[in-house]
């Protein structure tokens, strides 16, 4: 069983992954210069997790901003989750976006169109 806890920074989101509970949370800003390096531990952990996932796997993604370099990495994470889903294990994706943030809502819809996973679009109020 694996647990990943990464605190947020001005350029990177917080990541919490508990493989036993089947819970993953990504929250904050994702604008690092080197996004591949940042997301690598999570992607690798999800690869291992795919062999014996919890049911269901609940994923909460609440991003304020992300750069295009991160958008590829987020897709990579979602593709790992899609594999788990394809293996017959339920995966729930909650995609949070701030009210009026059409770009972030559309980003969720774009991902939903690419990967075969159902997204629950959740609008959150501005602070």
């Amino acid at each position: 069983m694996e647990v990943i806890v990464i605190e947020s920074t001005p350029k990177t989101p917080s990541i919490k992954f508990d493989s036993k509970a089947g819970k993953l949370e990504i929250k904050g800003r994702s604008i690092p210069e080197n996004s591949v390096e940042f997301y690598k531990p999570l992607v690798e952990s999800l690869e291992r997790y795919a062999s014996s996932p919890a049911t269901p796997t609940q994923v909460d993604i609440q991003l304020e901003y992300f750069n295009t370099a991160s958008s590829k990495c987020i897709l990579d994470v979602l593709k790992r989750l899609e594999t788990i889903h394809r293996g017959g294990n339920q995966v729930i994706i909650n995609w949070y976006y701030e009210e009026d943030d059409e770009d972030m809502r559309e980003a969720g819809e774009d991902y939903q169109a690419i990967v075969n996973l159902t997204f629950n679009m959740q609008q959150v109020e501005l602070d």
Partner: protein
Amino acid sequence: MDIHDFYDKMDRNNILLSFKGDITAELLTSILQIIESKMDNMQEEPKLRKKVYIVLVELLQNLYHHMDDPSLEEASGEMARTAIFMIGKENNHYNVITGNYIKNDRVPILKKKMDEINSLSPEEVKEYYKRTLNNGQISEKGGGGLGMIDIARRTGKPLFYDFAPINENFSFFTLNVVIEQ
């Protein structure tokens, strides 16, 4: 150098911040923080604030990654390492301008890419983005060539660019991005 003239020019163009020099990760962080707090003080609408911020991130990171392009090492130190960046606000729109040296052999590729983006309707740009996100390979820097498409997608405006020939090896590439409400 006439500093007052320089001041006047910046003032006339409503420059909020400008920088010329080495582009480092620390610098990017500082610029983003400064602009964020300026927009906060100006009580800019959250929507526009986000748009400006994320476009800045893409433009600055383009410059940053461009700096470690190995082909630039052949250039003299100044040409390889430095870039210029400016952000200004006129009436209701922001102008972000970047400038950097680029190898002449890169010019047609970049020009073709921007012309292609500029020829598309907003809907087509969105489709192009989605297609590139799904099919494009992640480069080592993580970019995957999405930056320019994303900027056009978010601003809904053409990418205004210029390539000024410098010598047989280099040109100076200027990009002007307009961000409106």
